[in-house]
């Protein structure tokens, strides 16, 4: 109050008030797009169809229905098996990338990341072409059927591989070269060095990767949908309960069960990250691998094999999409790209996907950057900022499928005035932003943390409001991170299925959903064609990002060079 009496008349708006207001809006927004849907899911699981509270009755029903319990055990089995296969392979691959002098590291890194640019079900489609009823390598299965556990595990391995490699490679890169020099000076055998230095150093990365893979598999919807056959898993069960039988309560129970491993993984990861920090001191010297012909050649062969499989899994579907009639007429044709033949919307879903991904990239990046700035750089209420950060970190622990279910319950609720958005592009965009919020938020926060904390103080002393400094200084400095976030959001919005499959409406079917539908209708080649369109678009976006980063930013960011 005394402030008003003494404030010079020149001042127009109080910065603190603006910051507080924006922070309030951010928290309200995050509550609506993240917390409330989860709450809807939680409350739905303890209600009956009329919305009355029934306690744990739904859970009891679930666990006393044999077919539903089978789906749970099936899911656990598939997730465990995939984890056991992927983590060692990814470790070896990451080891080759970080600890050897093998040639072509750049190429192999790119190959390992390839599956990220495709919807998860693309590898499943490829598998059908290779090992399916008309597959040219069907004999390798020795009479077994690719539709089921084998197909799911194989496809999941491809889908999860890049995530595991990235996590483990990061852990392996954080090695103190001095430890190896000391071990060498003490005449330690290579095996012992591996067991006493390398493996313990990567321990946390391995645990983290295992949890991430397990969670990805158990919550993925696309792969079991395409290649699961009669093999029921949790994710497809949730879909059947909701979309097929309109049994929302049981769907909510499945959603909560899916949430459990993800929450566990999140907790373990948090815990590990705290421990991992201490591993590498400021005085550590980065490890530089030395050439060793035998090892390097062996790892090259291994990486080439893996790279070939990953490229093959992508290439197979792409190739198949251009084949006239598999496997009888192998002439090339574009007829499967005439989507109107297979899908009422024709090219519509693809365009909707582009529009959705574009909106997610633009709106999401803006929201996340401004949100991270408000949390990181303004001096508003500490409690509000902490709460906003917590909400921003929440989606990390929530699989897309679960978030999608939450959205279904939340947006569908009769009491909710937002239910007019059900099935609109708006809800798809909002849901996708929420789904991928955390990683982008962490990227933005990390970039902002690298900026001198005194910039805001200096601006305040010069009587320049923080939003001017945000525009003139913060945004230009963080431009590379902003581009990273936008491309990440765009690619993920293009390829995601699990959340949006519950939310699309008649006019807003997405390409990834069209793939599922065309595959369901038996038009596998058209499904492959649509998947190819998504992959090419995603890769094109990434390439454009790289070009932009190198040339345009290089020019705009002249000030970085001495």
């Amino acid at each position, binding site marked *: 109050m005394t402030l008003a009496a003494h404030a010079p008349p020149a001042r127009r708006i109080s*910065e603190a008030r603006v910051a507080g207001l924006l922070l309030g809006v951010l928290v309200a927004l995050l509550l609506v797009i993240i917390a409330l849907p989860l709450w809807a899911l939680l409350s739905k699981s303890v209600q009956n169809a009329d919305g009355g509270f029934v306690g744990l009755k739904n859970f009891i029903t679930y666990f006393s229905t044999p077919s539903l319990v089978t789906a749970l055990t099936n899911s656990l089995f598939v997730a465990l098996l995939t984890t056991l296969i992927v983590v060692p392979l990814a470790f070896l691959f990451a080891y080759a990338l970080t600890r050897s002098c093998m040639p072509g590291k750049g190429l192999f890194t790119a190959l390992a990341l390839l599956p990220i640019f495709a919807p998860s079900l693309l590898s499943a489609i490829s598998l059908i072409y290779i090992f399916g009823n008309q597959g040219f390598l069907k004999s390798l299965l020795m009479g077994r059927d690719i539709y089921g556990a084998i197909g799911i595990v194989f496809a999941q391995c491809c889908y999860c591989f890049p995530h595991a490699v990235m996590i483990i490679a990061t852990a392996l890169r954080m090695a103190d070269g001095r430890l190896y020099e000391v071990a060498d000076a003490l005449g330690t055998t290579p095996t012992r060095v591996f067991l006493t230095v390398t493996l313990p150093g990567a321990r946390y990365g391995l645990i983290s990767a295992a949890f991430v893979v397990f969670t990805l598999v158990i919550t993925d919807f696309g792969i079991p949908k395409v290649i699961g056959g009669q093999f029921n898993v949790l994710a497809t069960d949730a879909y059947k309960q909701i979309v097929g039988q309109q049994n929302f309560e049981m769907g909510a129970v499945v959603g909560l069960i899916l949430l459990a491993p993800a929450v566990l993984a999140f907790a373990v990861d948090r815990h590990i990250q705290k421990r991992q920090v201490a591993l590498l001191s400021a005085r550590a010297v980065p490890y530089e691998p030395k050439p060793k012909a035998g090892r390097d050649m062996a790892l090259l062969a291994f990486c080439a094999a893996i790279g070939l499989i990953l490229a093959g899994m992508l290439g197979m579907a792409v190739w198949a999409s251009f084949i006239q009639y598999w496997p009888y007429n192998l002439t090339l044709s574009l007829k499967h790209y005439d989507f109107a033949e297979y899908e009422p919307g024709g090219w519509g879903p693809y365009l909707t996907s582009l529009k959705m991904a574009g909106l997610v990239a633009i709106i999401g990046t803006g929201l996340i950057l401004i949100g991270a700035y408000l949390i990181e750089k303004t001096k508003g209420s500490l409690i509000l900022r902490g709460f906003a950060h917590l909400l921003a970190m929440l989606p990390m622990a929530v699989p897309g499928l679960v978030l999608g279910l939450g959205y279904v319950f939340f947006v569908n609720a009769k009491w909710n005035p937002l239910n007019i958005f059900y099935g609109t592009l708006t809800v798809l965009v909002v849901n996708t932003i929420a789904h991928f919020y955390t990683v982008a938020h962490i990227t933005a926060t990390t970039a902002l943390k690298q900026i001198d904390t005194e910039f805001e103080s200096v601006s*305040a*002393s*010069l009587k320049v409001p923080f939003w001017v400094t945000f525009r*003139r200084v913060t945004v230009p400095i963080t431009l590379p991170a902003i581009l990273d976030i936008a491309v990440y959001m765009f690619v993920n919005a293009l390829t995601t299925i699990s959340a949006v499959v519950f939310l699309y409406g008649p006019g807003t079917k997405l390409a990834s959903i069209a793939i599922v539908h065309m595959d369901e209708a038996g038009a596998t080649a058209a499904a492959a064609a649509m998947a190819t369109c998504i992959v090419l678009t995603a890769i094109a976006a990434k390439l454009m990002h790289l070009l932009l980063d190198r040339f345009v930013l290089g020019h705009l960011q002249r*000030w970085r060079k*001495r």
Partner: protein
Amino acid sequence: MGQALREQGRTEVSDETSGSGPAPDPVIQTTGIGGQDVTADGTAETAAGEAFLSARALSKSFGQFQALKSIDLDVNRGEFVCFLGPSGCGKTTLLRAIAGLDRQDSGTIRMGGRDVSQAPPSERDFGIVFQSYALFPNLTIADNVGYGLVNQRRPKAEIAARVNELLSLVGLKEQGVKYPVQLSGGQQQRVALARALATSPGLLLLDEPLSALDAQVRLRLREEIRSVQKRLGVTTIMVTHDQEEALSMAERIVVMNHGVIEQVGSPEDIYRKPASAFVAEFIGRISFLPGIARGPDAVEIDGRRFACKVPAAFAPGAPVLVGLRPEAVRVRGVTGKEGNALSVRIADLEFLGPYCRAMLVEDGGAALELLADFSANLIGDLGLYEGKVIPVELPAEALRVFPARSAP
């Protein structure tokens, strides 16, 4: 050109300070001078009119840690004041409270007659320079300096002229088109100074501005900051942990420790008449000899009486510490007959270039140890060497009496 600039600089100042005169004639507060008269919390009564900046009963805690304990402080218009103290003493916290960057828990701050205790930084009138320079890396030097001016919606030509003027003021006239990363650390800090001064603030705050720089650059920039400040007459507060920096730059030094002001005074006062054993030890070197107060003019050290002025606060018989600066120990012409003479053995001579620092031990006993600085001349003239026994005098006027430390 330089003359014109100076004139402009002055005009700028007299606008700001509304008639206090371009040549700053700092009113050194009477209370600061008499060492002993300064109360422990550094309260200083302003003799004439209100101080430009006054803080009353400022307190701030970070959790359990009390960073500021009821600080009272006045800073006069046009004055250059240094906050000096070891790390964690609260000096930066006090500066940030004055800036409004970290609000105090309680207490008031008045600036230029206005209560700004609750005002956000943008409603206070100051420019600030940080140790990290905090230059905007994506803006040119000229844009950095003009950053605050652009926001005032002044005409472009006026901004350009002002930026040029400031860049010449800090000796970087031709560097306006460069980016911060292309300048050396010292040059970047000059740009930060120009940026802080661009909007002609009433108060300039310097938060350890030289700590990140090389020793050579630091010395030069020290003088430059001082001369710019003198020329513009802007009231300035600098935080530093470097006593030499504070002694050479400040008109008044505020010595802080554990969140309280230990002493406020001119550099000379602080050095010659430290108000506490902490101040005496923190600024320069000093030897402490344990003794007992014996009336107003004498202390007893190791069973011997030494003449010296004992403040009335010490009752006869009270345990005290008697402090003596190394350079105050007299050797030349001392016969051993003087009242305050002492026969000592040179236990150690440490070569420090222009002079040697000697460790003197009382001859015939090991109870008394004191440091003394001997010039190369003195050592040559008197033929001093390690182990030699000589008479020295502890001049009564150089002996300072402090309360004995309570047992740890």
